[in-house]
C-alpha cells in the first residue's frame, strides 16, 4: 500500500518566547522540530507499511530549510520525501495550505502511485487549528477519520479500514472505505528509532523538491498570501494568572469531611468570609 504522511516543520514551542515590549514571537535562534502530533501519524504509517508492505511518502510545504524535518522523517524509516517549496506559498493560511498540499498529494499519486491512506497529525503546535487535514480530505474527496486513537484493522482486499476515534464522551468505532484521510491523535504510539540502514539512507537520499509549477499547481491565486482570507490582527501574550486551583483528595473521605475541608480551604483563601458566614449560620 502507498501511504502519504503530511508533516510540518514548526518552531520548538517549548523554547519560544514572546518579546516583553513588542509582544511579538521571538523566533531567532529557536530550534525547529517536526510538529510533535505529526510523529504519531508518521509512526502509524510506518507500522502499517511494516505490517502490510508498501511505501511511505512524507510531504511537507515550507521554506528550503524544511528539508531538515524531511531528512529526519527519512531517518525514522520513511521511503520517500517531497518538499513543496516556492515563494508563492509564503503567507499561506489553512485554506491555501490545504489547497497546495492536496495538489501535491494528487501529483504524488500520479508519479508514485495513488495513496491508500493520507495521514496528518491532529493539529500543529504553532497554528493549533486542526483544519489542514480535513481541508485536504475535502479537496481530494477522501473519507476523513479525525482524532483517530487506534487503527483496529485494515482489509486491503475489501478496501476497508476500521478505526477507533476519540470523541466527546467516549470512543467511536468507525469503518470506512479506502482511500481515506486520517488525523492521528497524540499519545497513540511511540516514534521508533530508525535503524542504522534508515539513518544511512536518510543521510544520502535525494529529497524531491517541487515548486508550485512542478507540483502541477496552475491557479496561483489560491496559493500563499493571495489565497489566504485569514488575517492576523494582533498577537499578544496573555497575562499569566498566578492563582492555582486547589485540589482536594476525595479518596476514603465522607461527604461531611469533604465539605469541611472545602469550606476550610475557602476560608484560608478568603478569611473575610469566615465571620460573615459564621454569623449567618448562627
Amino acid at each position, binding site marked *: 500500500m502507498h501511504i502519504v504522511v503530511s508533516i510540518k516543520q514548526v518552531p520548538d514551542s517549548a523554547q519560544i518566547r514572546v518579546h516583553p515590549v513588542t509582544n511579538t514571537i521571538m523566533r531567532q535562534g529557536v530550534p525547529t522540530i517536526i510538529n510533535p502530533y505529526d510523529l504519531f501519524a508518521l509512526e502509524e504509517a510506518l507500522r502499517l507499511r511494516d505490517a502490510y508492505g508498501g511505501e511511505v511518502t512524507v510531504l511537507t510545504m515550507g521554506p528550503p530549510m524544511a528539508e531538515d524535518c524531511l531528512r529526519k522523517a527519512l*531517518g525514522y524509516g520513511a521511503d520517500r520525501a517531497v518538499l513543496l517549496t516556492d515563494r508563492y506559498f509564503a503567507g499561506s493560511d489553512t485554506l491555501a495550505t490545504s489547497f497546495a498540499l492536496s495538489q501535491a498529494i494528487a501529483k504524488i499519486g500520479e508519479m508514485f502511485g495513488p495513496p491508500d491512506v493520507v495521514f496528518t497529525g491532529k493539529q500543529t503546535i504553532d497554528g493549533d487549528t486542526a483544519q489542514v487535514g480535513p481541508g485536504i480530505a475535502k479537496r481530494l474527496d477522501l473519507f476523513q477519520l479525525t482524532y483517530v486513537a487506534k487503527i483496529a484493522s485494515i482489509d486491503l482486499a475489501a478496501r476497508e479500514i476500521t478505526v477507533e476515534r476519540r470523541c466527546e464522551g467516549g470512543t467511536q468505532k468507525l469503518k470506512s472505505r479506502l482511500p481515506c484521510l486520517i488525523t492521528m491523535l497524540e499519545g497513540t504510539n511511540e516514534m521508533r*528509532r530508525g*535503524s*542504522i540502514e*534508515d*539513518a*544511512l539512507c536518510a*543521510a*544520502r537520499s535525494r529529497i524531491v523538491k517541487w515548486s508550485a509549477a512542478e507540483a502541477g499547481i496552475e491557479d496561483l491565486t489560491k496559493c500563499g498570501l493571495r489565497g489566504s482570507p485569514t488575517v492576523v490582527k494582533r498577537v499578544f501574550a496573555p497575562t499569566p494568572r498566578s492563582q492555582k486551583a486547589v485540589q482536594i483528595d476525595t479518596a476514603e473521605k465522607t461527604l461531611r469531611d469533604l465539605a469541611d475541608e472545602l469550606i476550610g480551604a475557602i476560608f484560608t483563601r478568603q478569611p473575610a468570609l469566615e465571620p460573615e458566614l459564621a454569623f449567618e449560620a448562627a
Partner: protein
Amino acid sequence: MQMIKEEFDAIVIGAGMSGNAAAYTMASDGLKVLQLERGEYPGSKNVQGAIMYANMLEKIVPDFRDDAPLERHLVEQRLWVMDETSHTGIHYRSDDFNEVKPNRYTIIRAQFDKWFSRRVRGAGATVLCETTVTELVRDAKGKVIGVRTDRAGGAIYADVVVLAEGVCGLLGTRGGLRKMLKPEAVALAVKEMHFLPEEVIEQRFGVKGSEGCVIEAVGTISNGMAGLGFLYTNKESISLGIGCLVSDFAAKMESPYALLDALKNHPSIRPLIAGSEVKEYAAHLIPEGGYKAIPQLFGDGWVVVGDAAQLNNAVHREGSNLAMTSGRIAAEAIIQVKRRNDPMTKRNLALYKTMLDKSFVVKDLRKYKDMPALLHTNARNFFTTYPRLMSQAAQNFMRVDGTPKIEKEKATTAAFIKARSRLGLVSDAIRLALAWR
C-alpha cells in the same frame, strides 16, 4: 545477525574539531568516509571557551573565512593574576592583529561545528547524528574492522576507525585501547554565556567592528586549586568561565558553580558583565595531563586523535588547534597508507605518530612535560600565595601614604620570605624555569 553490506574506507567517531578535520581531509581526498556523532547535530555536545586559531584551520579549510561563523578576531589579550579584591595584569594589544587574515578568533562551537560539518558533508562524507558507537568490532586477530552503534541493524565495517570521541574516550577505554582517565589528568570547566548588546561590548572592552578582547586569569579565584578563569568577547555575548582539576574539586569538595558565581561577583569582573542576560550554561572536561598522559595513538585498524588522545596544551590554553591538527595528520597518514595499497595495520599506521611527533603538537607538549606536575603539586603557592603577594606588592608600590619607600620595599620582600621562605622562593623559581624550558 544482520549486517550492513556496504564497507567504508574510514569511520570517524565524533564530530568535534578533530573528527571533522579528519573526516574532511579524508573525504576531500576521495576516501569513502562515514562519520558518526551521538549529538542531535554536530556541535550539540561540544563545549569550548572558545578561541579558534586560524592557521591550523587554514591548513584544512583554506577558504574558511568565506562562510565560517566567526565571532570576533582578537586584538587584545589580558593576563590577570587575581586576589580577592584586585587583579594585576599584563595587557597586550596590537594593531598588528587587525590584519587581512587575523590569527585568532572567538567562536561559538554550536554554530561553528555545524558549519564545519556542512563542509565535511560537502566534501562527500556521510554524517550520521544521534548515533552512538557502542563497541569496536574486531576480527579474530584483534584488528579493529568496524563499529556497532546503538541503532538496530548490526555492525558497519571500515578499513580504519578514527577515534575522535572526545576527552572521556569511553569507547577506547572500554575497548582496552587506553587506560581510564585519571581525575588529576583532567580539568572540569564551567561557563556561562552572558548576552549583551554589541555596542555595550564595544564600549566596555574598547573594541570596534569585529575586534575582540580576551581575559585569562589565575589566582585566588580557583580557591587554592590549579585552575584558570576566562572571559572571551563574542559578537553579542561574553563567555565567562573557570576550570580546575577534577582531583582538586574532589579533594576540596568544592562545587564548580560556586567558583563561577564568585568569579562573576569579583569586583574586577562584575562591571564587565553588568546588565547581561545569561541564556546558556555548559560544562566540559579538559585533558590536562600533558605530554606524559598521551596514550598509545595507533593500533591495528585504529588511530586516536584530539582530546581522546589527551592532546591539549594547558600552559598556552590551546586545545582545538591540536585537535584539528592531529585529525588532519591522522587523515593524511591514512591517505598515504591507502595510496600504497597497504593494509591499515599497527605497523603502517605508526606513520601517524611519526608525522605527529614532527609537528608542533607533540613538540609543544614535550616542552611543557613537567609543567602539569609542578603546578598541580604546588597549587596553593602558585594560585593563592603568589597572587596575594603580588597584589600586596603592587598596592605597596601604588599607594602613597607617607611611608618611606625603602620601608615599603622591605615590607614587600619580608612578606614574600615569610610566606614561602628564601629556599622555597628559589626552588619554586628554579622548578618553574626548568618546567618552562
